[in-house]
């Protein structure tokens, strides 16, 4: 599915390496101390951070040199997921093409997706008129409407309160059914809640995924320091 073959991503002077495969269709959490390279890894997969060695494949296709818009991945960023000057409709419709006045059929599909995330009737609002949780739902709707096989989540719900965050994580996973979800978190409880496997990231290196229960009860040696601090 998502395969790293001796991949090295470099942002400035900082590098992170990965050499493993992520299994298809499940939820994989990425856990590690801040500054270790979790974001760099995800942004590398999305094509924002240059890959300086090895190969990255998605569903067998080599995307190592592909531009971000040509990769079969959609991404939820930590913040700035929505354009503040566009309506909910316009923001979500961008998933289907660069049109600010979407065609009838696009509008219908957007409305349908907004129903799924529980935002019926809010398509004319601008982000400033929505709560934090509602804004997260808009971003999720767009990422899902992009309909890419891989969904990357760079802690998009970290600004929400604990209950709302759990709710959004559950919603994301249930709606992303069938897609491969890779999500960063700094909370092992999040991983325990929804992830099938966990990628540990230590400074400069991403470790191969381990089943979540194994990871939490018997973390890899490299991660022990991190867990002892939690």
């Amino acid at each position: 599915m998502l395969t790293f073959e001796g991949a090295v991503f470099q942002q400035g002077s900082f590098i992170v390496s990965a050499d493993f495969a992520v299994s298809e269709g499940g939820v994989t959490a990425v856990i590690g101390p801040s500054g270790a390279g979790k974001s760099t890894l995800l942004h590398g997969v999305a094509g924002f951070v240059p890959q300086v060695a090895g190969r990255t494949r998605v569903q067998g296709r080599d995307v190592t040199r592909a531009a971000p818009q040509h990769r079969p991945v959609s991404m939820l960023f930590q913040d700035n997921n929505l354009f503040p000057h566009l309506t909910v409709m316009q923001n979500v419709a961008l998933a289907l093409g660069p049109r600010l006045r979407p065609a009838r059929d696009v509008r219908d599909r957007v409305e349908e997706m907004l129903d799924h995330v529980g935002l019926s009737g809010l398509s004319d609002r601008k982000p400033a008129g929505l709560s934090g949780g509602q804004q997260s739902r808009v971003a999720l709707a767009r990422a899902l409407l992009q309909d890419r096989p891989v969904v990357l989540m760079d802690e998009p719900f970290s600004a929400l309160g604990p209950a709302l965050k759990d709710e959004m994580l559950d919603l994301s996973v249930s709606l992303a059914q069938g897609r491969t979800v890779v999500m960063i978190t700094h909370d092992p409880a999040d991983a325990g809640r929804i992830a099938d496997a966990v990628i540990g990231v230590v400074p400069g290196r991403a470790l191969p995924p381990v089943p979540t229960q194994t990871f939490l009860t018997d973390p890899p040696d490299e991660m022990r320091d991190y867990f002892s601090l939690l």
Partner: protein
Amino acid sequence: MAQRAVSVIAALFVAGLVVGPVAAVLWRGGGFTALSTADLDALQFTVWQAFWSAAISVGLAVPVARALARRQFWGRGALISIMGAPFILPVVVAVLGLISVFGGRGFLNAVLGPLGLPRLDVYGAHGVILAHVFFNLPLAVRLILQGWLAIPSERFQVAASLGAPVFWLLEWPMLKRIVPGAFAVIFVICLGSFAVALTLGGGPRATTVELAIYQAFKFDFDLSKAASLAVVQLALGLGAGLVALFLARGDMLGAGLDRVVRRWDGSRVMDAMWIGAAALFLLAPLCALVIAGVPGLGDLPGSIWAATGRSVAISLGAVVLTMMLALPLATRAGEAASLLGISVSGLVLGTGLFILLQPYVRPSSVALPVTLLVNVLMSLPFVLRILRTGVEGAKADYGRLGASLGLRGWALWRIAYLPRLRRPMGFSAGLTAALAMGDLGVITLFSRPGQGTLPLAMYELMGRYQMGAAYAAALVLVAVSLALFWVFDRGGRVNADV
């Protein structure tokens, strides 16, 4: 990559517009053979008046800024806003305001005359310095006020509780850091003064190099001499500009000056006096202008309205071209490049363009396009300074989101970036419009009488001593300038979701 190509084209266009005329000036005037004693006098006067203008502006600004920094009073915010206004106030308008207060038939003489005090005259070297102080005192106040407000209020609390001398402990180190830069910026601005010298100066004792360039054109019809003088002005501007670049700190258009630091020292009465005097000095000429101008509004000649139309056209054209160049140039390198243009004065560019164009076209037939181009070059450094942070912020915040949605090229700008830039674009378009509307510079070299811009038409009225009509035209000019600024600035704010 298409975006990079657009940036490179814009950069080459700007560089060509600066380098071409400068090369023409160097080629034509490089010999220095034509410099006379009068020209050397002009050089000396230019430096002398710039020094005193800067020294007086900064010297007066220190107590005014300190008073503003530590006193809260009704109208403080408005006064500080007004201190930003001279930036967009047309020079000729301010000059007419000063004439109506300090001139031979001005308000002050009407009061002083009956008291048996000597009559004041605003024309000459002191008039030039007076006008420069009028324009640059507010700038100096704002620059120095920024320095004052940058001192953390806790330090004043510590100093007060220790009973320590606030001036030597806190203010003197700040002034040592800020004042040289403020002085240098104003010195450079005054070195390139043309419109003030044209309207209030002249003669052997009050001619700047810029004015001498104009006189070489208009009185001597001597292009070589004009070019030689332009080389002198170029060296002067570049030298001083480099010094200013190293010394200057603070943001000339800075915001966030609405804070007052609570203090426990200083005399309330003295502070009130300084603020009152500064406000009177800045506001009286504008009030006097309104009083002097309103009666003449009814019978302004039709030529004034035609000139107004030409000025508005130049102003709007300058806005469009400036924005088209500024957006692709809004990077660190682009801003540095555009700063080169600021030390090349409008008259130097005008002289160079005249040399380049004269063999092919009649200069008067291209007066308006040339004025437009030169105004674009003059505005670009300010506009880029305003826009750059906005562009960089929009790219940092939404560049990756845009890329992940497949937005590229024009679509990326239209959907993601331009809406984020409405406020800075509106503000900088307003500045560009007002500056171009009020500019009295290169147009004087190219235009024939009766076919120029509104500021030039006003200058012609002053030359014919039709002061009533000139005051009225000044009101039209200031109204249109402020209206243009307001419309653009407002357009950027209304409905902007930030």
